[in-house]
């Protein structure tokens, strides 16, 4: 067992974990935040996407011990005081989810691409950037609409 401290959505979380513990299992089993999903064992589906020190990563392919001291943001850290973030609201407004399994990963990957492009996103770029996220319900059309609309609100607030 190794003691690991990771700041999750602003709270320092210290837990004794086995070296083989994946970040996604640290979040789900040790911290108790089950919004981050596991959808594959090949690092392809993106359901486990979280922000690690500000960048979107697949938490199923990172060891918790390797990121001791890091800051992580999960889907639970997106809403503020019960108010959905703009990107979550856009998914709701545009029916960007069906079963919802892929949604946490889509939202975290979407927030990351909006940050990197400072909201300057068109449909083609969004589809390219979503390469690492799979929606089993194949609801891409509305996911893309939600991200276009969230990118637009980002540009509006930035300017």
């Amino acid at each position, binding site marked *: 067992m190794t003691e690991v401290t990771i700041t999750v959505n602003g709270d320092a979380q210290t837990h004794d974990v086995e070296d083989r513990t994946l970040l996604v299992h640290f979040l789900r089993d040790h911290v108790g935040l089950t919004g981050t999903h596991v959808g594959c*064992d090949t690092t392809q589906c993106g359901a486990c996407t979280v922000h690690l020190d500000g960048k979107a990563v697949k938490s199923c392919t990172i060891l918790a011990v390797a990121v001791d001291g890091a800051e992580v943001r999960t889907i639970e850290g997106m809403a503020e005081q019960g108010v959905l973030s703009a990107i979550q609201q856009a998914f709701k407004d545009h029916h960007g989810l069906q079963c919802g399994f892929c949604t946490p990963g889509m939202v975290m990957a979407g927030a990351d691409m909006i940050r990197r492009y400072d909201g300057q996103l068109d449909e083609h770029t969004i589809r390219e950037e979503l390469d690492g996220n799979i929606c089993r319900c194949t609801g891409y059309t509305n996911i893309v609409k939600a991200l276009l609309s969230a990118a637009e609100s980002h540009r509006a607030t930035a300017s």
Partner: protein
Amino acid sequence: MYTYEFSYHKPKSVEEALTLFGEFDAPSFLSGGHTLIPTMKNRLAMPDALIDLRSIPDLQGIRRNGDRIEIGAATTHYETSTSDIVREAIPALAALAGSIADPQVRHVGTMGGSVANNDPSADYPSAVLSLGADVVTNQRVIPADEYFDGLFTTALEEGEIIQHFSFPIPESAGYAKLCSQASRYPVAGSFVSKFGDTVRVGVTGAGSDGVFRWTEAEEALSADFSAGALAGLLPDAEEMITDLNGSGEYRANLVAVVTRTAVEHQGTANVR
């Protein structure tokens, strides 16, 4: 919980990494882990200790050194693709890095891990071979022409650590690939570098022996650097991979197509 038990170590120097490597029965170095961890999940690799190289300063950073650029083995694909130094000196290399896998994988996967692994469909080996980079390890400097040694096989010895890559800066270079619709790994990718009268072509994804230099194309392009100079040239279909993505004949033709495209799009990566 996915994987079986193993121990994790994070050395701060190459010496410490080597000492640790000597202490276990079946240790493995770890960089981004985006090849190794999936491989461990399905038990195709079962190291008993992971020695994480990412905290070692000798493996970090991107530098311009005279007429070369040096990229640390632990540099992520994202860092390489967004580096001003790489973008200015070898824009096609930055563009290639930005075309690997997806954004999340690019934030974690590293050049050292990719080139050490030498997957026959990986992107970086084509650039390392075409540019004639030096692979600088804790023991020696390995020229690219002597480094790649077939599928998932390299000149690296057991316990040898890649510290950085040293790339000569070409007059121009370009990369083009056609990706598999499912995995997005290249079905064929070609990196074409021009150094004055010398042209080098590194082909990935296609050769049944892994990345290779297409020497007939190099000769034709050295005499006349234009897509037209490649007319009628094809690599030997017998030496190409045949799999779900296509036959050897299909791959041979595709190598010619992506090589022409790379000649026509110097300074960038053309991805389809």
